[in-house]
């Protein structure tokens, strides 16, 4: 007996196909606009090479810091039972829902307060590379926390309970049993933080500035080149970011299978 075809699948397929086609058309148009010559010339510029290096460096530091924050916070949100948990959960989404420029502005204003000045006496953040990392972290960590919470939600707490009955403290049970089981989620959280940081412009621009050879990361380059009307260079750097994002996505998929 043949199964009857449900037209719903056709509708769902058309919607998905249209969306995918639009994404590919967008990227294709950008790729066609730029030539290998433009890309090569962009890569030859000292400022752009610096921006690539700084982007890779700050995104990697951000990914590590975001993960260090996301693991304990995600665990607390997932396993903690306390009054106000839902409010805390919602509050931690603030960096996701705020306009990126506003996040940068909030950072800038915070570092004008007495507490901010005291912090800057130890580590200067405003208009520095440390500021680039902090601006990226505010957004990246929020996404990493969400990913880690989901990861811990999907892991049973039972093995951790058993480890405690066998002689572990809660912290040791988490270290020996839960974190090894959460390694795919941790890898995904770090990757998301990395990817969000690579593309994030608003907070970096407002808080760390757009000083060439100092705090210029790749999104800043696109913005700077566009602002002086150098569309070819802006498109070439954009294509470079697309390639980097695809390489990271593919690596995450491949490594994620093995982790």
């Amino acid at each position, binding site marked *: 007996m043949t199964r009857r075809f449900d037209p719903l699948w056709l509708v769902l397929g058309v919607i998905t196909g249209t969306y995918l086609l639009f994404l590919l058309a967008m990227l294709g148009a950008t790729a066609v606009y730029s030539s290998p010559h433009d890309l090569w010339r962009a890569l030859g510029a000292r400022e752009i090479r610096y921006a690539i290096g700084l982007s890779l460096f700050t995104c990697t530091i951000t990914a590590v810091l975001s993960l260090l924050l996301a693991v304990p916070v995600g665990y607390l949100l997932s396993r903690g039972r306390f009054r106000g948990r839902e409010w805390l959960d919602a509050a931690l989404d603030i960096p996701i829902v705020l306009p990126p420029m506003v996040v940068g502005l909030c950072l800038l204003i915070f570092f004008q307060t007495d507490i901010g000045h005291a912090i800057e006496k130890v580590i200067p953040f405003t208009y520095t590379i440390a500021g680039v990392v902090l601006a990226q972290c505010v957004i990246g960590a929020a996404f990493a926390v969400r990913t880690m919470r989901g990861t811990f939600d999907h892991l049973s707490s039972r093995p951790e*309970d*058993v480890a*405690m*009955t066998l*002689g572990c403290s809660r912290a040791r049970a988490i270290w020996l049993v839960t974190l090894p089981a959460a*390694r795919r989620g941790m890898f995904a959280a770090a990757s998301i933080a990395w990817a969000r940081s690579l593309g994030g412009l608003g907070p970096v621009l407002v808080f760390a500035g757009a000083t060439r050879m100092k705090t210029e990361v790749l999104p800043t380059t696109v913005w700077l080149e566009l602002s002086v009307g150098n569309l070819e260079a802006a498109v070439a750097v954009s294509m470079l970011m697309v390639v980097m994002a695809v390489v990271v996505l593919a690596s995450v998929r491949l490594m994620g299978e093995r982790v």
Partner: protein
Amino acid sequence: MIRLEDIAWRAGAFGLEKVSFTVPTGRYGVLMGKTGGGKTSLLEIICGLRQPTAGRVWLGERNVTALAPGERGIGYVPQDGALFPTMTVREQLGFALRLRHRPAGEIARRVEELAGHLGIAHLLERKPDGLSGGERQRVALGRALAAKPRVLLLDEPLSALDDDTREPLADLLHKVQRETAVTVLHITHQRSEAARLADNLFRLEDGRIREVQT
């Protein structure tokens, strides 16, 4: 010996009131009751994973009510086994002894001994993903017994198994208890299982305990 004295515990509208019973040393106690009746909560109170609002838990001559789970000298087998997802069977069986910093040779000997006894010697290098329900429960039992606890707590260890697997595992539980003389508290809602294994049978009804067989 497992002794509960006037244990009370509450979660929302549900609660346990003045729960008291004793499983004498070296006996196989079975606790029966309806699903959702608080049996697992009671077991978790004995484990130290939940704190009672009142009452005391005695294991042997020690009042363990305020002790951490790992200080109580218990072995615990949850319903689904709850194996450690990233560890091999060998690592699971040696886990409690590694925590106690026992020499590698002693751990290896104990793991081999347990694996032989429980019929899982051929599974030592496997991870939980590749194990059947019965195999998982055998591994969970071995992991709980590795450090030679005085008390073994079993939360419906046979309920998720098919008939062919349940019978041999019930035999194994009985054999292990007789050979090690460990004091057991086994939770089930199956009458046949209780009748077969229990030296002392208790029933949890409406948050209170009734001993129905000694």
